């Protein structure tokens, strides 16, 4: 019995996996973080004593229960510019498939280091993006879809090693937990229960890129969007585990995130979330043009 259970466990977590989905995820995630790192050049002063948070208070401003053991911000503020340039170069290389675990781990340290320096200016895309980057830094994510494969005309590829397989699974579990939690948190809110929360979101000019107040002419649309969102999030885990509903649920997710990206100006958040979807797609659907990028 124990042997059988261990065999299931071993097979689930450690069996070799095709790395194509992980490679697509790497492109989307690192591409997004590259963009966000470039945008940081506009406000590097956020991470200095000229901002709201003096260096010595960088971690002290966080509640004790949420405070990291130490700060990953190991460089002085005066080094922000070269460190950010390095971060941008690393993310560009990783997007192109150049690099390995060490480079990805270093890019994670830099990204989280900036977050630890001025935590309050960060939001969902930073938090989720850096968390998945952490998991990904243990994988051989540059094995597929790399420009180096094109140059070397590589035609045979390795499958995932133990660590990569395990982290692919862990990222699948992680995104399921995130969705379930976001759904459960919404269920605590009275306006989500009565179906009017989407009105508060879409009528808030600070959250949207267009004026959606015209929707009060067709108010029944709002509860439909609201309840669909909750159902999508709460039931994400079982629906992506079950083969028959997986792609419908992923398509719903794509529609929701594209909506959030386009109409709420949160495209980096949308692409970070959607990047994880590649881990649920059968590699045969991803291998669209065999030969291109030597997939």
């Amino acid at each position, binding site marked *: 019995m124990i042997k059988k259970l261990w065999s299931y466990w071993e097979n689930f977590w450690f069996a070799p996996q095709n790395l194509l989905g992980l490679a697509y995820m790497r492109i989307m995630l690192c591409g997004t973080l590259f963009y966000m790192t470039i945008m940081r050049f506009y*406000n590097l002063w956020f991470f200095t004593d000229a901002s709201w948070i003096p260096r010595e208070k960088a971690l002290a401003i966080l509640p004790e229960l949420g*405070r990291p053991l130490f700060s990953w911000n190991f460089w002085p503020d005066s080094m922000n510019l070269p460190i950010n340039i390095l971060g941008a170069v690393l993310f560009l290389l990783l997007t192109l498939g150049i690099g390995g675990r060490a480079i990805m781990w270093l890019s994670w340290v830099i990204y989280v280091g900036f977050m630890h320096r001025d935590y309050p200016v*960060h939001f969902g895309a930073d938090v989720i993006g850096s968390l998945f980057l952490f998991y990904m830094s243990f994988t051989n994510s540059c094995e597929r879809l790399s420009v180096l494969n094109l140059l070397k005309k590589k035609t045979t590829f390795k499958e995932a090693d*133990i660590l990569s397989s395990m982290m692919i699974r862990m990222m699948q*579990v992680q995104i399921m937990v995130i969705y379930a*939690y976001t759904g459960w*948190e919404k269920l605590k809110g009275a306006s989500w229960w009565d179906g009017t929360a989407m009105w508060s979101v879409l009528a808030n000019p600070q*959250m949207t890129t267009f004026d959606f107040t015209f929707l009060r002419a067709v108010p029944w649309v709002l509860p439909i969007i609201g309840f669909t969102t909750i159902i999508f999030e709460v039931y994400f885990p079982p629906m992506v585990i079950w083969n028959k509903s997986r792609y419908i649920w992923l398509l719903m997710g794509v529609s929701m995130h594209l909506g959030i990206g386009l109409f709420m*100006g949160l495209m980096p958040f949308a692409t970070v979330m959607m990047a994880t979807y590649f881990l649920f797609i059968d590699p045969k659907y991803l291998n669209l043009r065999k030969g291109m990028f030597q997939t």
Partner: protein
Amino acid sequence: MAKAKPLLKILLSVWIVYNIFAMLVMPNVSSYFGRITSRFLGPYANTVGLNAGWNFFSPEPAHPMYLKILVNYPPLEDGSLRDAVETFYPSPENDKNVPSLTRKREWALMRFMVLDAKKLRLLMGPWLCKQYPGAVSVDMEHIVETIPILDQAVLKKDESVSDISEERKYANASYSCDGSGDEEAL
């Protein structure tokens, strides 16, 4: 090597269980499991980023809000009073010049600051004093433009939403630019 793999798998399995437990418990750290396990999970979870609450737009979506700031100056040499400067954070005046991502970061910062008056006093106040040299104090007020509930907005279809929004004032704080009160802890 052949013997090393099973051992590696056992060690990795221990981490898998630990990480999944942290993943499930830390977003709800105030729960019973959170309280009793946070000293084993917290340092790790907080360092790698597993401590987030995943409460996007929840439990209730936020209403439009901003920080209203009044910058006070000392009387002029001739004894006349210098007008206080009224401003906002984030400043709507430079909306077009600020990249969208930077503006999102400013909103995030403002929402963090207005969580309690102490943050306004200890972090926002000193920063504002630096932005307005010569100021003696700054008064800060958290303003929320409450969006009318859907039923009301439907009933008053002909009025603009901003007209039927209600302004509410929350946390307010004052900071003296001479630094008195700096000894207060966060």
